[in-house]
Each structure stands twice: as C-alpha cells, then as structure tokens.
C-alpha cells in the first residue's frame, strides 16, 4: 500500500500521510453507522422503533447529530486546567487511532506488518489511560476525577488477563505480527484459532476447549478495557453524571465518542484476528472461482468488517441485556476468576504445544 502511494506521489512524507486517510475515513463512517445501530438495537430490544425520521429508518440521524455537535459551543470552565483540558481528547483519540496501523484489513491493506504487532496494540491501549486521567484531572470536577480514576484502575487491571491470553495465542502462532497470524489461518475454517489454529493431528483436538476458554477470557477482558456495559463503571450515569467526559462539549466530546466506538471495533478486530481467521473467508473466494484477481481483497475486506461488526453487535446486545457490575464484583471477576483461569490456560496450552 505505502509502496504504491510512494510510486504515485514520489514523496515518502505525502504517501505516509495519505495512507492514514482511509483508516480515519473508515473510523468516522463506522462510528456514524455504529451509533445508529446502537440506538436501533437498544430500541428493538426494548420494543421501541428508535430514530425513524431522518432518512430511511433514521439512518441519517447520526449524521444530523454529528453536524449539530460540531456547531455546539466549546465550553471551557474557568477553573479548568486549560492546556491539559484542550489536549486530552486528542491524546485519547490518537492513542486509539495509532493501534489501527497494525490491523490487517485485507492481504494488501495493512498499515504496518511490523513484527511487534499485537504488543504495540496492547501498549497503546494501555497508554489511553494517560489521556483519560488527563481529561479527568483537568476538568477540575469530582465526578470527572472519579470516573477517570475508575477507568484507569479498570483498564490497568484487565490488561493482565488480556496479556495472558495474548501470550497463549502468541505461543500458538509463534509470531507477534497480526498480518502473519492471519496468514497462518488461511485456506479452511478449521485452521482458525478457535479450532486450534494451524496445529495438526491430536494436538488440535486437545486444543479446541482451551482455545474456547481463551476466547471467552479475551472477550470479557477486552470488553472491560473498552469501558462498555456491563463494565461501564467509569461513566455510570446514575452515580457519576457521565464520568471523565462530563465537562466536555462540542467537538472535544465527539473525540471521546469517536475513540470509544473505534475501541469497540478494535477489540472486535483483535478477537477476529486471533480466533476467527482475520480477513480469511470461511468458504474460499469467489474471485478465485471466477478468476478475477481484484475481487479477492474486496471479499477479504467484507469478511473482516463483517466479523468485526458481529462482535460490535454482540457488545451492544450485552449492553441491553446485562446490568452493570459493582466495583468489588469487577475486581473479583478480574483477580479471582479471569487471571487464574488465563494463567492455567497458558500453562496447559504450552504443554499441549510441547507434546
């Protein structure tokens, strides 16, 4: 992708800047769609219709909301720490956006197939905490500060089960690069991570249940890291107004919003890459059948986005099904259940891979 752009424009700088445009455009379009979907899903689960007025079944509702949000007054209270208050939304958004460089959208569009892949994603999703704490502290508001401290504590503790499961999967694939992990699962759907990955023979049968445990743990812990219900304590409306973004309005608020939804797709994508074959089609490609080469990347993009969107949908489904956990329950789930299970899973998968 980059090489192609460098050929066209003849300048590395222009090419690298332009290579980020599709990802940014994707995030904005995805958020517009996902917010509408969230409202529709919640409405239908509560036996309502949801937004119906703007466009067909309200599809343009979020666009209208977004335009409204852009025109809002940018309120900065006089007791805020102005510089930090202004920079915090962008720190949060950029640290989320930066992780998208490692995602293989198709076999030809991947920001960077660097060998640190998943480690880079984990590092930057941990760095988001700095931005959240910045927002909470600079707001000079007790609800914001409580929300940001809760959010930070939650993200930092749930990073441990996430990292343990990621270690398990790295042992299975033998690489950190997300692109190489995806290519290891090509050709048939029984090569997918959830079915034991590219391992053959007796090991594959033994691996399947442990891969399933790994998938459940990774799903719960990444859901908690993205601060979604049932783990949305950082912005529990009934206690904290809106958490760390209480004081924000207009475009800065929409930055937090963008990064939250971008995070949702990111965790879906990580699950898909580790367990469900990334951009690989479960049945083989139509492009191969018809002999049309350019169709394959488009199909791959379809499968990647489709599988990712499915997990985004599951997140929304859970949001309107489960009540919020308490703080002590949150910590119990993490330290007493997820971490020991993830740890034993790591040991057992290691043993199976050795024999």
């Amino acid at each position: 992708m980059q090489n192609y752009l460098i050929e066209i424009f003849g300048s590395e700088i222009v090419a690298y800047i332009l290579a980020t445009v599709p990802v940014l455009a994707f995030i904005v379009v995805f958020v517009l769609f996902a917010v509408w979907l969230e409202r529709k899903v919640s409405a239908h689960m509560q036996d309502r219709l949801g937004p119906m007025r703007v466009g067909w079944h309200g599809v343009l509702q979020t666009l209208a909301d977004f335009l409204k949000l852009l025109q809002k007054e940018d309120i900065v209270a006089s007791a805020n720490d102005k510089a930090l208050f202004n920079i915090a939304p962008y720190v949060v958004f950029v640290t989320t956006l930066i992780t998208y460089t490692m995602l293989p959208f198709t076999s030809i569009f991947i920001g960077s197939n660097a060998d640190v892949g998943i480690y880079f994603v984990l590092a930057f999703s941990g760095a988001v905490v700095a931005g959240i704490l910045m927002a909470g502290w600079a707001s000079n508001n007790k609800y914001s500060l409580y929300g940001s401290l809760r959010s930070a504590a939650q993200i930092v503790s749930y990073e441990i089960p996430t990292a343990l499961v990621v270690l398990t999967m790295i042992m299975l694939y033998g690489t950190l690069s997300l692109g190489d992990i995806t290519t290891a699962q090509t050709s048939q759907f029984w090569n997918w991570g959830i079915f034991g990955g590219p391992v053959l023979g007796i090991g594959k049968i033994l691996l399947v249940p442990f891969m399933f445990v790994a998938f459940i743990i990774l799903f719960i812990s990444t859901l908690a890291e993205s601060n979604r219900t049932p783990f949305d304590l950082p912005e529990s409306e009934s206690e904290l107004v809106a958490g760390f973004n209480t004081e924000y309005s207009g475009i800065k608020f929409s930055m937090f919003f963008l990064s939250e939804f971008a995070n949702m797709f990111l965790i879906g994508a990580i699950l898909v890459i580790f367990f469900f074959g990334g951009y690989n089609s479960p049945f083989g490609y139509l492009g191969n059948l018809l002999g049309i080469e350019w169709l394959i990347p488009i199909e791959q993009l379809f499968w990647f986005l489709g599988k990712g969107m499915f997990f985004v949908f599951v997140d929304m489904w859970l949001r309107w099904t489960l009540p919020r956990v308490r703080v002590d329950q949150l910590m119990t789930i993490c330290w007493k259940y997820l971490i020991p299970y993830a740890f034993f899973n790591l040991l057992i998968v290691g043993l199976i891979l050795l024999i």
Partner: protein
Amino acid sequence: MSIYDLIFYLFATLTIVSALMVVSSDNIVRSAFYLLATFFGVSGIYVLLGADFVAVTQIMVYIGGILILLLFGVMLTSNITNVEIKKGTAKILPAVIGIGVLLGALVSVMTRTKWKLQLTEIPQTTSFELGKLLITDYVLIFELLGILLLIALIGAASMARREQE
C-alpha cells in the same frame, strides 16, 4: 536531510523540551503529564535506532505502567497539588560542581569510546533475537528478575491483605 533525520530532530526536541518542562513546572500533576511526552519522544528515538521491541516496551512499561502509577500517587495524595514547589536556586556552588563533574564524565565517555563505525545491516525485527538471547545467554538474569518481581507481587498482596483484617 532525509525524512528520518527530520523525524529524529522532532523526537529529540520533544524529549528535551518536555524534560525541561518537567523540572520547571510549578504544578506537580502537570510535571507528571509532561513526562508522558518525554517517554514518548525517547520511544520514538528507539524506533529510529531499529530497536522496535525496546520502543514498544518503553511505551508499555513507562507510559502504561510507571506514569499511571505516578499519576495515581499524585492524585490520591491529599493536598499534594496545593504544596508550593520551591524552584529557587539554593546551594548553587555544590550543584554546579556536581553537574560539572557529571557532564565532564559523560562528554569524556562519549568522545573516548571507540564507536563501531562500519555499516551493519539493521535487523528487520528484534523480538525474535531478543527472545532467543533471553533464554540462552542471559537466562540466569532473566529468571532472577522473574523471582524478584514475584517476591514484590507477593509482598504487595500480603500488605493489602493485612490492612483489610
């Protein structure tokens, strides 16, 4: 000047300016946030040196771990933000001597070391080689560090338990 030189100067300036801000800021929370930029700049310089794994570890450990711990410490300590930080010059003579000796030592090390000058190929990826070295040549240090961290973890858990009872 290639694009890499430009990026290097960008990161170097970021590191130095933010490090200066860390020591000269009046507000302790702000100092902690300037540290974020310093760590980020250093990690960028690691990337330009071809040490991708070290760069990401820098972000993971320093920004995701130490900085957050620092911020928690600052924010949860009551009235720490109201404490006036003294920035005046006190005991200027010993300070000048100390800094002068350190600077002299650093400069002499920098100029006297025989740096490798031949061009070697920068490895595409370092994580594989690093992993190999950690479980072959440096396995003893690696295991000892693991035990040290485990002791710290058990100590922290037992301290937290005792307070609860």
